[in-house]
């Protein structure tokens, strides 16, 4: 059973438009959420995170929204750029743990010029 779900395997967006990547989770003990970006033949790199005490966190073109009641988070990229084309992983961790992350399957974003 997947505790972190990314139901869209892929997403295609035009350059300059908004990209919205979605993530759902089932474990109510999760209290910290992260997004990682992965290019081919490289390891994932940290993008942005959010604590469960917040509902929004912004870093430049990237914003993560958290809806605890719906157990849903989303990553918004505005404006999208061709260099954003990558696989995006949502990850979550329960509070008080060793910080072991549970990852979703990823969404492949393609930003077309």
């Amino acid at each position, binding site marked *: 059973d997947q505790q972190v779900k990314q139901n869209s395997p892929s997403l295609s967006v035009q350059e300059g438009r908004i990209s919205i990547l979605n993530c759902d989770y089932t474990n109510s003990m999760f209290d910290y959420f992260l997004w990682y970006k992965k290019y081919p033949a490289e390891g994932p790199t940290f993008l942005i995170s959010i604590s469960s005490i917040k509902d929004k966190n912004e870093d430049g073109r990237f914003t993560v929204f958290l809806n605890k009641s719906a157990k849903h988070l989303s990553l918004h990229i505005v404006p999208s750029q061709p260099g954003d084309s990558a696989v995006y992983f949502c990850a979550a*961790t329960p509070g008080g743990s060793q910080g072991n992350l549970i*990852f979703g*399957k990823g969404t492949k974003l393609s930003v077309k010029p």
Partner: protein
Amino acid sequence: NAGVTQTPKFRILKIGQSMTLQCTQDMNHNYMYWYRQDPGMGLKLIYYSVGAGITDKGEVPNGYNVSRSTTEDFPLRLELAAPSQTSVYFCASRYRGQALNSPLHFGNGTRLTVT
């Protein structure tokens, strides 16, 4: 600043062979992790370590062993390779101090094929 370094980048093993995947980090991170990623899947935790001399199982530890004799190194050992262990293996590290949550830093992975 090298970060997390994994060797080798690629390896092909025959069933029953053994090998060690090397991982070293130069960031003085106390926590280290091994994940595997199967095609179309997310990363699954194999083993982790919270400091030298301390290791613990993750979600999918069967068929693997680890050791952590130094802060820098966290090798992953496959004793009897099986086709089910064909995957991309990622090592990661982070510093966990007063901030309970800090992001993982990943290496570039080892692509392993068992035939």
